[in-house]
């Protein structure tokens, strides 16, 4: 392997072992050529602009180093793991890379998994609600075994098909922790006085708080916490400027034997998000998509030449850029009855002039579609996207008359059966101009159906609380988060399985809480969806999973639980003129893909002639 210039001095002075000692015996070798990429040279800093300290997790997302990862074709491949074995989704055996080390040079072994499982997941102080749900199959904990320092095994009695995807998720379930580092915060291992002093210095209440704070892996706030990611944070918070440095012990190399990542440093600058487009346009970021919107494209494009960058348009991965979500659990009984009538939902969907919206707001570049999977997904069918998305106000009006909204007032607006005007307050989270504009246009369309709508944006949190309590009749939000799934992904978003599903949040809560809160599903189709979800969880073959997915998608399309407006909208991505290996066009989504993560930013590099 070739030594990285960044470390040359430290290696020379003996502060760091040489490259061959740092890499695992079997590093993960990426063959750039076969991936259609160019092998590069190390160096440079990736400047990115972020909003607040929470965005530190973007580096974890962009890095996308997981035990197993999805490749660009959404196939699961080992990454940190050297390999894994999966028997009927019940028994999982993981093989670590021999000689793999944490960023502080300490070996990464089975002990790190044991520490997590025994000392964190099963510790009632650190995990008051028990281990993460991904580690439970049918509510049961697995059997955890250490076969040897490089091999571990999880065993369940029933299938747990969600286990591996959850490890590869953008926000992964961490089932290992740097034990050697964290033991100093755990009274089981640490000296009492030593720990007491640490607790006092950190101004925390007890060891669990200290442990909790020091062990955040997803949001790398603690510069001392050893990591396996390509870059490690070097700036203690609070700060407005975080610098990440390359991990000398990172496990990936290119075909030439150069240790990845190519880019030495990440400089993350925090600030007001509204200013980010302007700052990007003045050349203050090297690769940026977050906090840039479609409307900024023109502005960014105009400064392309002057500041030597390119603006690419990637495709957003939502099931819908915006979808109306009639609340089937609305507290108002009259409204609930109407909202649950499929004809009403279909009528609203037919009443939206999607073409107009697409033309006015998205330059016709979006797809007029229901809230469903994208064509990029193997599960896509045209019929899902097209269901009730043609503009047919006459049919819409006919349907509305049928559902009992046939009476109108003097101004021609429809009345509810109890005589109230059928005004709909559509609530949204935060103040997003695009949302406002969409609703403005939808409002004009609905006015033709004799229904007036009002937009009420509120703080995201308050907004959700209102939905959860059933006060909201209809909301608008993004559609499916993961709109390019394969059958291996859990189809939970299609069934009432979570409180955060705004069309049926109380049913979702019922499911989530195991029946202790919320309301039981009392409509046949949603119940069927739930059954299908249950089937998927116990499924054992991909074929079976695919049929379940198909059925759930078609029920959702037919029942129009959420009224998608457009999807496939564009996400501008600004790339520095000298940065190589960044795809021209790709899918930009959190799940799957970790935004840039799936395209492996550790393979991006700066092509600077002079150097």
């Amino acid at each position, binding site marked *: 392997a070739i030594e990285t210039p960044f470390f040359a001095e430290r290696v020379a002075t003996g502060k760091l072992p040489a490259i061959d000692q740092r890499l695992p015996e079997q590093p993960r070798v990426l063959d750039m050529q076969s991936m259609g990429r160019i092998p590069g040279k190390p160096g440079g800093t990736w400047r990115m602009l972020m909003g607040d300290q929470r965005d530190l997790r973007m580096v974890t997302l962009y890095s996308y180093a997981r035990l197993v990862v999805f490749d660009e074709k959404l196939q699961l491949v080992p990454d940190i793991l050297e390999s894994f074995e999966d028997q009927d989704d019940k028994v999982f055996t993981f093989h670590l890379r021999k000689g793999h080390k944490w960023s502080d040079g300490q070996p990464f072994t089975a002990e790190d998994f044991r520490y997590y499982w025994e000392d964190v997941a099963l510790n009632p102080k650190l995990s008051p609600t028990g281990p993460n749900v991904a580690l439970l199959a049918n509510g049961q904990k697995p059997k955890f075994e250490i076969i040897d320092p490089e091999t571990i095994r999880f065993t369940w009695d029933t299938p747990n098909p969600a286990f591996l995807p959850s490890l590869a998720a953008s926000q992964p379930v961490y089932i290992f922790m740097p034990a050697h580092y964290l033991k100093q915060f755990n009274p089981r291992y640490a000296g009492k006085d030593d720990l007491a002093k640490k607790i006092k210095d950190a101004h925390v209440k007890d060891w669990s708080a200290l442990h909790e704070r020091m062990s955040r892996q997803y949001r790398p706030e603690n510069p001392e916490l050893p990591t396996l990611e390509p870059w490690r944070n070097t700036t203690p918070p609070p700060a407005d400027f975080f610098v990440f440095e390359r991990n000398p012990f990172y496990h990936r190399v290119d075909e030439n034997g150069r240790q990845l990542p190519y880019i030495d440093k990440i400089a993350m600058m925090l600030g007001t998000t509204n200013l980010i487009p302007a700052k990007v346009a003045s050349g203050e970021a090297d690769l940026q998509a977050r906090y840039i919107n479609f409307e900024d494209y023109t502005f960014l494009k105009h400064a392309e030449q002057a500041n030597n960058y390119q603006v690419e348009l990637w495709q957003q991965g939502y099931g819908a850029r915006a979808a109306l979500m009639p609340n089937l659990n609305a507290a108002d009984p009259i409204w609930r009855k109407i909202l649950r009538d499929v004809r009403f939902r279909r009528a609203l969907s037919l009443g939206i002039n999607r073409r107009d919206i697409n033309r006015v707001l998205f*330059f016709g570049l979006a797809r007029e579609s229901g809230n469903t999977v994208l064509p990029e997904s193997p599960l896509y069918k045209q019929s899902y996207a097209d269901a009730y998305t043609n503009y047919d106000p006459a049919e819409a009006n006919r349907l509305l008359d049928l559902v009992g909204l046939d009476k109108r007032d003097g101004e021609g607006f429809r009345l509810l059966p109890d005589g109230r005007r059928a005004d709909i307050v559509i609530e949204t989270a935060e103040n997003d101009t695009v949302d406002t504009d969409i609703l*403005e246009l939808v409002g004009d369309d609905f006015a033709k159906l004799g229904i007036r709508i009002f937009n009420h944006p*509120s703080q995201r949190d308050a907004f959700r609380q209102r939905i959860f309590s059933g006060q909201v009749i209809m909301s608008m939000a993004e559609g499916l988060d993961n709109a390019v799934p394969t059958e291996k992904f859990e189809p939970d978003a299609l069934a009432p399985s979570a409180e955060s599903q705004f069309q049926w949040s109380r049913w979702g809560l019922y499911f989530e809480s195991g029946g202790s809160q919320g309301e039981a599903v009392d409509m046949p189709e949603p119940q069927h969806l739930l059954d299908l979800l249950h089937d998927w969880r116990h499924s054992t073959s991909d074929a079976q999973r695919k049929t379940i997915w198909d059925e759930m998608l078609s029920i959702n399309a037919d029942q129009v639980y959420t009224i998608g407006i457009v999807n496939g909208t564009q996400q501008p991505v600004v790339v520095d003129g000298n940065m190589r290996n960044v795809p021209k066009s790709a899918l930009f989504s959190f799940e799957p893909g970790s935004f840039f993560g799936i395209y492996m930013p550790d393979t991006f590099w700066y092509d600077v002639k002079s150097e």
Partner: protein
Amino acid sequence: MNALPPSSGKLVHYVSDAPFDVQSVKRLTPEQERVYLASQWRLMWWKFKRHRLAVVASLVLLVLYGTIPFSEFLAPYNGSTRNTDFIRSPPQKMHLFHDGQFVGPFVYGKDYRLNMTDLKRDYTVNHANLQRIRFFCHGDPYQFWGLVPADVHLMCPADGGTLFLLGSDRLGRDVLSRMVYGARISLTVGLIGISISFLLGITIGGLAGYYGGWFDLLSQRAIEIVHSIPHIPLWLALAAVMPVTWSPMLVYFGITVILGLMDWTGLARAVRAKLLSLREEDYVLAARLMGAGTPRVLFRHLLPGFISHLIASATITIPSMILGETALSFLGLGLRPPVISWGVMLNEAQNMNVVALYPWLMLPVVPVILVILTFNFLGDGLRDAADPYN
């Protein structure tokens, strides 16, 4: 008329020989009677009339406020009429002459092309497409005063043409029309807010300054407390509790009241401080000894001595009230569409795109400036009119 006595000489005894009439007080003609017995208000009005800038300012304000009842008629379009083919169209210039020939007021039509490389709508003036502006014409239908259906406008675009004298916004709505509609909210919000804050500020500050003692003590503590709660958290908290079902109009009143309620403390303290010293004046004592009640002493004797400050602070508070809602919108508590106000329009103009690409969307700042300048000049005039020394 007497001569200067000789310098350093002995003074000669001088006696005037002019006729001397002790009853020289003349009778007044009715005209003089009118002038000399005019009320104080009339005097002020006469004085005000002489302040030319103030008169102009008040005329401008009168016109601006005069548009409020007739927005629908004055605006070429309805405030929410969208023209999807003319999104973000730059302003169309009004012309009178075409090829050196007089044609009357008209605009040239615009051709537009979607520029897919930078995703921009490019407009070019089409000199062949001459669109004569119609006056007192039929255009967008509206409900006049919410009652009478009508469709007459002062001016409308030519049939099939467009008339975006100040350009159009991102949904293709006419900026000029929206400005006309926006005046309704923006011009009133300031007045209502300021009335509330002045009422509170003057009364509480006045009583505290005049009475002193425990009232002063309590009111000062109240002011301290109101003052020490920064506006923003309160706004956020109110945003959280303000019922969502409130119509935009109610929200508007709510905001106005809040703006007013938050603003009085500074004034109250200034009034109090001034009155603390003014109340020691003899004329205050005189009024009290005449049996004048507190309101009278406060409003007839004490506050006039403070009128300059009051007028000044009123005229500088109005802009902050008009613009206050933009600050609120920033926190998600502002007015929302479909309500149109200058603040809402400016709020929509608050991004770099607009500054760099669509600067005409910032035009609503012009009426704001106009209103503020006129209010201030009006204030100057009022101040002078009330100033006895002038």
